[in-house]
C-alpha cells in the first residue's frame, strides 16, 4: 500500500515504519487488516472474472464459449474463491481486524502474532488455490459432493481441499483472536451492554467460525485421505453413505452463510444509527438476535438435503428449524427500519449501501423461506432459484455491507475522503446491475433451469441474456470503488478524526490511528450510540 502518500506531519500506523518488511512482519492489527484487504481484493477479482466467464458462456443456449469441463471448473472455482477466499475473510478479517481492538478500547488483538499467522495461512492457502487453478483446476462444485469428488473427478480435488483446509484454520484463528479480545481486553467501563453491535456481530460470527470450521476441516481431510490413501469412509462401494459427507459438509456450510452475513449486519447496525443520528432501535434485541442466529444456525443444515435422500421426518424437523432461524433475521430488519423513524437522515454513500443491504437482504432472506418450505424446495432446489437466493444475500447483502463498511471506515483507515459523488454513482450502479443480473434467475429457477448447466434448452435464453447484461453493469460498479479508493489515498481530502460525527471508540482516536490506537486507554462512561451527544458533521463543518 502506498503509505508514502500521507504527509508525515503526525505519526500514525501507516508511517511509523516503511518498506516491505515492515508490512510482512508487522503485528499491528491495522496493518494486517490492510494486508487482508489487498489479498481478498485480488481474490474477489479472480472470482469475479470467473463469474463473467460463466455469464458469457450462458449468453447462448449452446455450450459454445468454453468446453463443458472448463465450465464445470469455472463455477467450482468461482464458488470456492468467492466463498473461502473472499467473503468469509472479507468483513471479519479486514474491517473486524481493523476495528475490533479499537472498538473495545485495546491496543491490539490479544494474540497479534497469531493474527499475522492467520494472514499467512490465508496467503498460503491462496497460493495453493492459485496453483490449483493454474495447473488445471478442480471441478467438484464448491460443495465437493462424494462420491464424485472422491472417486470420479479427475481434477485437482486434493489440492483444492487442502487449500480450503488451510484457509479454514486462518478463519478459526481469527475467530479465536476476536473471542479472546472481546472477553478479555475491553476498556474499563465498557460493559457488554455498551459494546457496539459490530462487536456483538463479530462475537457471534466467531462462535460459528470456532465451532463450525473444524468440522469442515475434518470432512475435507477425510475426502483428501479417501482420494490419496484409499481410506473408505464415504465410499458407497464399501458400504459408505453418500449422505454422510453432505451432513458433515452442511453442518459447517450452513452456519458458514451466517459467518458471511452476520458481520455485514454488524456493519449496517453501525451505519444506520450514524446517518440517522439516532440510537439504534432495540439495542438488546439486535445484539441477542446475532447470538440467536449463531446458535440456531447450527440446527438447520439438512435443509440443503431435502431431496438428497434423508428421511421424511428429519426433513420436516430441519424445515421447521429453518424457520426458527429466520426469526432473529426478521427482528434485525425491523429494528433497522425502526431506527430510521424520526431520525435526521443523511444520504452519504455508506447509508446508500446500508439501505441497499436491507432491501436486497430482505429479498434474499424471504426467498430463503421459499426454499425452506419442503414442497417448494423439491421443485426449485438445484435450480437457478437457489443461485438467485444466495446471490441476493451474499452479493446483494454481504458484499453491499462490506462495501458500505469500507466506505464508512475508509477515512479512518486511510485518513482520506473518497469522492462522494463517485461513491454514490457506484452504489447506484451496483444496485441496478445487481438486480438485473439476479432477478431473472428467480424466474429461470421456477421455470426449472437446473444450476451448474453448461448448455440449456433455448426457451431459457432471454432471461439469461438479461442476466449476463446485468453482470457487466455490476462489474463496472465494482471496479469504480477500487479505482477511486486508490486515487483517494494520494489525492483525497484529508479526513479528521470523526468525519461522520459517529459514535464509537474508533472515532475518538486520530485518522489514521497511531500504532497503539489510543494515547491512553479510554475509560468508557457512556452508552453505545449516544448520538444525542454528538453533533452531526453538517452542523459543525470541519474537514469538509
Amino acid at each position, binding site marked *: 500500500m502506498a503509505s508514502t502518500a500521507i504527509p508525515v506531519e503526525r505519526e500514525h500506523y501507516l508511517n511509523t515504519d516503511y518498506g516491505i518488511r515492515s508490512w510482512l512482519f508487522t503485528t499491528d492489527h491495522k496493518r494486517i487488516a490492510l494486508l487482508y484487504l489487498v489479498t481478498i481484493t485480488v481474490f474477489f477479482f479472480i472470482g469475479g472474472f470467473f463469474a463473467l466467464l460463466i455469464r458469457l458462456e450462458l449468453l447462448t443456449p449452446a455450450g459454445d464459449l468454453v468446453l463443458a469441463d472448463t465450465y464445470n471448473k469455472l463455477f467450482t472455482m468461482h464458488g470456492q474463491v468467492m466463498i473461502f477466499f473472499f467473503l468469509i475473510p472479507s468483513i471479519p478479517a479486514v474491517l473486524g481486524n481493523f476495528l475490533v481492538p479499537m472498538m473495545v478500547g485495546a491496543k491490539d488483538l490479544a494474540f497479534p502474532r497469531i493474527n499475522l499467522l492467520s494472514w499467512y495461512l490465508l496467503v498460503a492457502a491462496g497460493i495453493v488455490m492459485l496453483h490449483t487453478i493454474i495447473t488445471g483446476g478442480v471441478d467438484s462444485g464448491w460443495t465437493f459432493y462424494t462420491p464424485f469428488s472422491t472417486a470420479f473427478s479427475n481434477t485437482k480435488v486434493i489440492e483444492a481441499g487442502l487449500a480450503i483446509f488451510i484457509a479454514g484454520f486462518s478463519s478459526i484463528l481469527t475467530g479465536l483472536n476476536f473471542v479472546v479480545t472481546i472477553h478479555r481486553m475491553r476498556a474499563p467501563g465498557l460493559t457488554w451492554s455498551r459494546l457496539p453491535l459490530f462487536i456483538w456481530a463479530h462475537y457471534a460470527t466467531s462462535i460459528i467460525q470456532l465451532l463450525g470450521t473444524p468440522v469442515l476441516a475434518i470432512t475435507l481431510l477425510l475426502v483428501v485421505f479417501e482420494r490419496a490413501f484409499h481410506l473408505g469412509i464415504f465410499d458407497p462401494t464399501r458400504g459408505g453413505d453418500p449422505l454422510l459427507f453432505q451432513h458433515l459438509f452442511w453442518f459447517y456450510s450452513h452456519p458458514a452463510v451466517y459467518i458471511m452475513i452476520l458481520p455485514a449486519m454488524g456493519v449496517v447496525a453501525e451505519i444506520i444509527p450514524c446517518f440517522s443520528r439516532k440510537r439504534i432501535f432495540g439495542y438488546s434485541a439486535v445484539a441477542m438476535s446475532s447470538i440467536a442466529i449463531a446458535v440456531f444456525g447450527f*440446527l438447520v443444515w439438512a435443509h440443503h438435503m431435502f431431496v438428497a435422500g434423508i428421511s421424511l421426518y428429519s426433513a420436516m424437523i430441519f424445515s421447521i428449524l429453518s424457520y426458527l432461524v429466520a426469526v432473529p433475521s426478521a427482528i434485525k430488519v425491523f429494528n433497522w427500519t425502526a431506527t430510521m423513524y424520526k431520525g435526521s437522515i443523511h444520504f452519504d454513500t455508506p447509508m446508500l449501501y446500508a439501505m441497499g443491504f436491507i432491501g436486497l437482504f430482505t429479498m434474499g432472506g424471504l426467498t430463503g423461506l421459499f426454499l425452506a418450505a419442503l414442497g417448494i424446495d423439491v421443485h426449485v432446489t438445484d435450480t437457478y432459484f437457489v443461485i438467485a437466493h444466495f446471490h441476493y444475500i451474499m452479493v446483494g447483502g454481504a458484499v453491499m455491507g462490506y462495501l458500505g463498511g469500507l466506505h464508512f471506515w475508509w477515512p479512518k483507515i486511510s485518513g482520506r475522503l473518497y469522492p462522494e459523488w463517485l461513491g454514490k454513482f457506484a452504489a447506484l450502479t451496483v444496485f441496478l446491475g445487481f438486480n438485473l443480473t439476479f432477478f431473472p434467475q428467480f424466474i429461470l429457477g421456477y421455470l426449472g433451469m437446473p444450476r451448474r448447466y453448461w448448455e440449456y434448452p433455448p426457451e431459457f435464453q432471454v432471461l439469461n441474456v438479461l442476466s449476463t447484461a446485468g453482470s457487466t453493469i455490476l462489474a463496472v460498479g465494482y471496479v469504480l470503488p477500487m479505482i477511486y479508493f486508490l486515487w483517494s489515498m494520494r489525492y483525497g481530502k484529508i479526513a479528521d478524526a470523526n468525519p461522520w460525527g459517529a459514535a464509537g471508540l474508533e472515532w475518538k482516536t486520530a485518522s489514521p490511528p497511531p500504532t497503539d490506537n489510543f494515547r491512553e486507554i479510554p475509560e468508557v462512561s457512556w452508552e453505545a450510540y449516544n448520538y444525542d451527544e454528538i453533533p452531526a458533521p453538517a452542523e459543525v463543518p470541519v474537514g469538509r
Partner: protein
Amino acid sequence: MSEPILSTKLYVGIWATLICLTVITASVAFVDLGPFNTVVALVIATLKALLVVLFFMHVKYASEKLTKMVIIATLFWLLILLFLSLADYGTRAMTRT
C-alpha cells in the same frame, strides 16, 4: 492471581484412580453384558475424562465460570452434531417408499 497449587498426593491419587479405571474397563470388555458393555465403557471413559478435566486441568479449582461455559458450549455443539445427524439415520427406516 495464579492458580492454586494442589498437593502432589492429590495428583498421584487421581493418577492411581485413572489407572484403576483403565484396568477395569479393559477387563469388563471380556465379560458379556449385552448392550451394557458399551454403556459401561462409555461411562468409565467419561469418568476418566472428568477426572482429567477437573483436577489435572484445574477446572474444579481456580477456573472462573467462563472456562466452564466454553466446555459446556462445546459439548452442546457436539451433541447438536450427533443428535441431529442421528435424527436422519434413526428415522430413515420409518419412511414408506
